[in-house]
């Protein structure tokens, strides 16, 4: 057994963490030494507008997502109304639609020459046009709000019963219980979800480009591809990293002095009748309609139109590749996340916490920039080791890149679950003669099982929906569903994106529903 007297395992894990940090180090240090010939222009003429529109888009999307997510969660958790049982799980479905696909389908329906817009215009002088900044805010929020809905629902449903009942006994009606008690008490959960929404918004490239919105991510690409200045691009990316780090700091602060989930007793739901019941059902149906039925229906319709040149085998192989990469990436990410969690629990000193925090920074960096870091690191290894082949373009490197990018997604739920395990139990195990490793494997790990499963699902969902890493790092003849969608969208054959896009939605649904069920079980 490994003990602290011979701390081999912690060192081995430390080395692993360093390996994960290599591409991040490239991304974070390159801005300071790589030549950036166009920086003066980028700083003066690009950054201000791109920063402004980023802030507008971010604020709008996050606020709207919070409103939709929190309100829906409250209705579903606190009231009984027709269709509630159905709506409770169906409201997570929008998360299955990647933002770029939602953006394309909405433009095809409600853009200036969209199907619905034309129909309306034929009957009135009004021409709906969703393809602008406010429109994009709506389009993003209606598919991203479940990031807030899910955790808020969990807290509302089972964490606050006593406080909410106390508020009732003090005469507070529904809206005051919601705004005065439930929302402030669920704030850590809401902020956590809002940070995820913010990250997705910041990382989006397809949707903002199509809607003509100038964000920091488009500034990265404008510098890189337009100005051929990778150095400036990396500097912009660093600003993005700083912004996200700021968001994460806000999130961490929101948890200080907050006891969340004070009790685990399910809340008794108040039955709504008459107009109120109709209003509640109507709201949920409306959200579901815009978040899932409309984009999903449009995809289904387009997928059903005959496409003469279409071959199913291409998409089926892409489907297989997608599922394979998602599984591989989830397993590898989990393995490393578990090792990190071990280090966190049984390692010494604050340096482990610092290392873990640094290693999970990858989620803050746009996929394409991570890809540059990964390629640079791998290229350096190739040359230093004098390899006769290149690591770039291997499945292994692709999975490694996904791990670098999504480690945070896996570590976070496990960290939360671990924090709820009393350290006394560890001490008891140690006093009974168990080594740290044995304690971890036999005491901590079994209790982490639900969190590990949830983490696996989250990573798999992100990999299936994600695009840039696969696009840039894939081996020869290797399509995934998202690269298929991207390629068709790139050459403006939007209708042809429908079938692979539909496959993406179908792939994401099972893990998504699994997550929902897992949460629902704890909600009672």
């Amino acid at each position: 057994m490994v003990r602290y007297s011979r701390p081999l395992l912690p060192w081995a894990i430390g080395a692993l963490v360093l390996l994960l940090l290599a591409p991040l180090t490239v991304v974070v240090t390159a801005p300071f030494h790589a030549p950036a010939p166009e920086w003066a222009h980028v700083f003066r003429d690009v950054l201000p507008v791109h920063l402004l529109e980023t802030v507008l888009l971010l604020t709008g999307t996050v606020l709207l997502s919070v409103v939709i997510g929190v309100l829906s969660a409250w209705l579903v958790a606190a009231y009984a109304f027709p269709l509630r049982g159905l709506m409770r799980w169906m409201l997570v479905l929008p998360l299955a639609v990647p933002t770029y696909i939602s953006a394309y389908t909405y433009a095809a329906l409600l853009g200036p020459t969209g199907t619905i817009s034309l129909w309306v215009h034929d009957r009135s002088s009004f021409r709906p046009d969703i393809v602008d900044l406010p429109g994009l805010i709506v389009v993003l929020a209606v598919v991203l709000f479940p990031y807030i809905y899910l955790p808020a629902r969990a807290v509302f449903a089972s964490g606050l019963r006593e406080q909410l009942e106390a508020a009732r006994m003090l005469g507070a009606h529904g809206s005051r219980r919601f705004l005065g008690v439930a929302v402030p008490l669920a704030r850590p959960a809401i902020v956590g979800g809002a940070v995820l929404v913010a990250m997705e918004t910041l990382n989006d490239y397809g949707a903002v480009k199509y809607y003509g919105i100038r964000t920091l991510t488009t500034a990265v690409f404008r510098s890189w591809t337009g100005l051929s200045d990778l150095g400036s691009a990396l500097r912009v990316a660093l600003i993005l990293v700083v912004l996200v780090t700021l968001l994460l700091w806000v999130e961490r602060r929101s948890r200080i002095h907050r006891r969340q989930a004070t009790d685990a007793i399910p809340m008794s739901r108040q039955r709504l009748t008459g107009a109120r019941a109709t209003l509640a059902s109507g709201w949920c149906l409306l959200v579901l309609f815009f978040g899932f039925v409309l984009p999903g229906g449009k995809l289904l319709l387009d997928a059903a139109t005959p496409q003469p040149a279409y071959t199913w085998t291409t998409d089926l192989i892409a489907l297989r590749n997608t599922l394979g990469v998602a599984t591989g990436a989830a397993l590898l990410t989990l393995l490393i996340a578990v090792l990190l969690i071990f280090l966190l629990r049984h390692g010494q000193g604050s340096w482990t916490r610092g290392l873990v925090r640094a290693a999970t920074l990858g989620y803050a960096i746009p996929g394409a920039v991570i890809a540059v870091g990964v390629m640079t690191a791998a290229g350096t290894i190739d040359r230093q080791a004098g390899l006769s082949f290149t690591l770039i373009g291997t499945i292994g490197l692709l999975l490694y890149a996904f791990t670098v990018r999504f480690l945070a997604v896996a570590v976070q739920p496990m960290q939360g679950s671990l924090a709820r395990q009393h350290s006394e139990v560890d001490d008891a195990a140690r006093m009974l003669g168990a080594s740290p490793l044995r304690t971890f494997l036999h005491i901590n790990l079994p209790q982490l099982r639900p969190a590990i499963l949830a983490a696996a699902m989250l990573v798999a969902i992100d990999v299936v929906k994600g695009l840039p890493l696969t696009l840039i790092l894939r081996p020869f003849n290797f399509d995934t569903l998202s690269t298929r969608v991207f390629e068709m969208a790139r050459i403006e054959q939007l209708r042809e994106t429908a079938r692979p896009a539909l496959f993406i939605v179908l792939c994401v649904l099972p893990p998504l529903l699994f997550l929902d069920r897992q949460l629902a079980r704890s909600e009672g």
Partner: protein
Amino acid sequence: MRPTLLLLPFLVACGSLGTDPDAAAAREVNVYSHRHYDTDAQLFEAFTAATGIRVNLVMADDDEVLTRMEQEGANSPCDLLITSDAGRLGQARMRGLLQPIKSAELESNIPAFLRDPEGHWFGLTMRARVFVYNKNKVRPEQLDDYKDLTRPEWKGRVLVRSSENLYNQSLLAAMVAHYGSEAALAWAEGITANMARTPKGSDTDQLLAVAEGIGDVAIANSYYVGKLMSGTEPEKAKARETLAVAFPRMGPFGTHVNVSGAGVARSAKHLPEAIALLEFLVSEEAQRLFAEGNKEYPVRPGSLAEVLQRFGTLDPDTLDLAQLGLNNATAVKLFDRAGWR
């Protein structure tokens, strides 16, 4: 249902990852391509059928592909680089990623201005940046020159996508090359002032918007126009009836064109195969497929798609295409200064 059952398809797929029944093929050529067209897949199949050489493909965006080749260095498996921008080919050459090829076949079939003088890269197809107008509202004689659209009478009538788009960048880069940056800036400012709306959507979206009367003339790439006009989708019927194409000139020079082109990678391990594929891509058969399938202008004379013939005659600007790459950054900066989003 046990939740773990949901994972079954994921695990099965993971197990079968990377297995490939045809992996044992004897001769092969590895291609990094920016082109995503179905036509290309057909072309590669035809090539394999004719020569027995298997084509392995990675598709990604230009700059990412170039970065990847740079990092892979001498170990790069890439034999042939295909992009849809002459500027990127010029850059690949400057960064030492390509090698010169001597081929009588290529030199005799590709006009000199569409290939690198030393044979580092060769144009395969042309795409022209054209005007597309509403037949009912606009007379084509108003649309002789790119500069025409900056005149005040076009205020609120011009449709064009964002300057994030490469083809807008190379159009302005060509102007910088011909007229200098001041005149190019004036043009970008003039167009920005005349826009019917803030730039959004794709080239095809601009065409549909002209048909809907949101503006009267759009700047778009010829092959998107060709695809739209030869298509059969019922919702685009109105566009097919109302739209017509004009070929604006750049002063004394012709209509701005960019190319899709290819160059043999410096690291190529399958040199003969790479050259064979390159030569195949300018063969009459391949050029016809480019033209028919993707409505691009072939570099080899003849074999023009019927829909392109209807548009009129393309008289391409013969500017040295390397200039597009050299002036691209300048063009982007001018867009930013002009406020063309």
